[in-house]
């Protein structure tokens, strides 16, 4: 029996599971938007702007979800500054939850700046303060912001998986593949979100086509990494002989990866399934581990 079975569950559930999904999606969306911003063409702009909006909303939502989940939400800032020595910085480079807090803050800042810049570009900002900020984010500044933010987006998508591994919990700490898996899922769900939302913003067929093909590739990567993840668990895979295993097989692999890969003609439907699969992936991997607790193991439960 793995040593990880003798630990206690952290109860990262109803707010954290949606956060993992939203954060991954937002990170993936920003990465794609930044890629199009840097290497795309003018017809890609609508998707770029949609991507920034999704990232910004996702980042703000992530911050809210994480804060509400805390046992003492008003103390969220204790993860950024030393509460007894304010304004000394609180940062541990070896602790994902510590560097993740700063990463989310930065990601939120950058994605909001990019979103404001995009709206300023469209001339859609009313408030003078916002227009002033948005006006700065153009040209080289905008590229710098989105360049850093794009890489940060992938980081945001993946660090949550690393966070789960840097624990002693069953399944999470038993495999080094969760970060890689969440990045792939973030990329595919990010692309899916853009496929669904960008047409309303005037996205061109060609950009959407590129998104769909990228999504397909990301799904293949996701499937391969999922296989590596399962393989790395070895005998621990008996945990999947359960409802969570069923969810993983049918929901994530079946509906979330294989089905969309075959639905070339219906990209919007495929995108919805990808989103469902991405959410179910977080749900299954989080709750399968949450249910394993040392006193239940000791009691033979």
């Amino acid at each position, binding site marked *: 029996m793995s040593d990880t079975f003798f630990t*206690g569950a952290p109860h990262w559930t109803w707010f954290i599971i949606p956060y993992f999904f939203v954060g991954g999606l937002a990170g993936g969306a920003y990465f794609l938007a930044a*890629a199009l911003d840097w290497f795309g063409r003018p017809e890609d702009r609508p998707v770029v702007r949609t991507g920034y909006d999704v990232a910004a909303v996702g980042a703000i939502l992530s911050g809210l979800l994480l804060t509400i989940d805390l046992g003492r939400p008003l103390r969220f800032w*204790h993860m950024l500054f030393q509460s007894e020595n304010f304004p000394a910085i609180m940062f541990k480079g070896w602790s994902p939850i510590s560097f993740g807090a700063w990463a989310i803050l930065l990601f939120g800042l950058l994605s909001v700046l990019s979103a404001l810049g995009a709206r300023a570009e469209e001339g859609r900002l009313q408030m003078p303060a916002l227009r002033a900020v948005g006006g700065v984010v153009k040209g080289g500044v905008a590229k710098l912001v989105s360049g850093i933010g794009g890489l940060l987006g992938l*980081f945001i998508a993946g660090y949550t998986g690393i966070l789960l591994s840097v624990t002693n919990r069953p399944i999470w700490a038993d495999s080094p593949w969760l970060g890689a898996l969440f990045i792939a899922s973030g990329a595919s769900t990010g692309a899916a979100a853009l496929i669904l939302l960008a047409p309303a913003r005037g996205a061109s067929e060609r950009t959407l086509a590129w998104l769909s093909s990228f999504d397909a590739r990301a799904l293949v990567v996701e499937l391969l990494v999922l296989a590596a993840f399962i393989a790395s668990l070895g005998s621990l895979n008996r945990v999947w002989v359960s409802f969570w295993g069923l969810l993983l097989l049918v929901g994530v692999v079946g509906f979330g990866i294989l089905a969309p890969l075959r639905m070339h003609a219906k990209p919007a439907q495929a995108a919805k399934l990808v989103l469902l699969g991405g959410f179910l992936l977080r749900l299954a991997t989080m709750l399968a581990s949450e249910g394993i607790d040392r006193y239940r193991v000791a009691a033979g439960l």
Partner: protein
Amino acid sequence: MPEPMGFFTDTTVCIGCKACEVACKEWNQLPAENGGIGELSGDSYDNTRKLDGIHWRHVRFIEQFKGPYDGRWLMMSDVCKHCVQAGCLEVCPTGAIIRTEFDTVVIQSDVCNGCRACIAACPFGVIDVNPVSGTAQKCTLCYDRLKVGLEPACSKACPTDSIQFGSIVELRTRAHKRVDQLKAQGVKAELYGADPEGALGGLNSFYLLVDEPEVYGLPRKPQLPSSRLAKSATFSVASAAVLGVLALVGLRKRRMDEQSRGGGGGGSSNV
């Protein structure tokens, strides 16, 4: 100058009286679960089941019987191990978890924001949230008592001196003598966590056990969470790189395809 202090728990003389559990609750004024109204667990005489935010000491009862009256009943008072290399301290993002001058590990209740990373990080499953405070709480090795020269409440209450408190160096000497004495009597006694070269640099609350650690609900080779960081990060970076390449290659291919077709609008999508 204060030196490393901690517990040596000789489980062979534990009588399962739970005075340690009650003394800890009384000193720290911890609430009973559900106001004291509970259900029988069915797990021998153990209705506490696990260490959590309102149980900082937990007595385990392990019945090892081959048949009626044929076997033994092991008892052990479980507690935070106050690891020399502590996983909880490692991951805590608020700096709430600190190491004291007594080499013990303490969660500062006014700094903790209840993120629960320490709960996931502890290799022994010791920590949980105290529902009253909303923060993570665990045994403090009675830091407040140590500061005024008292011994912890549990070791003071223990009627058989199963829980012994003192300087780690002295406790280790005592423990090795006890192991030798028991082995000479034919008892399969081993120390768990008394080796400073061993797992986590040694535990400042170490045990004398008469069976495998798993029997007592203890991990055989506890590790620090950070031991997994390098591999996990490497695979993530690789995954990110692959996706990044896929995206950029895809864009480049699209541009080259359109250039080879002489630009222009329309046309079916490729790539």
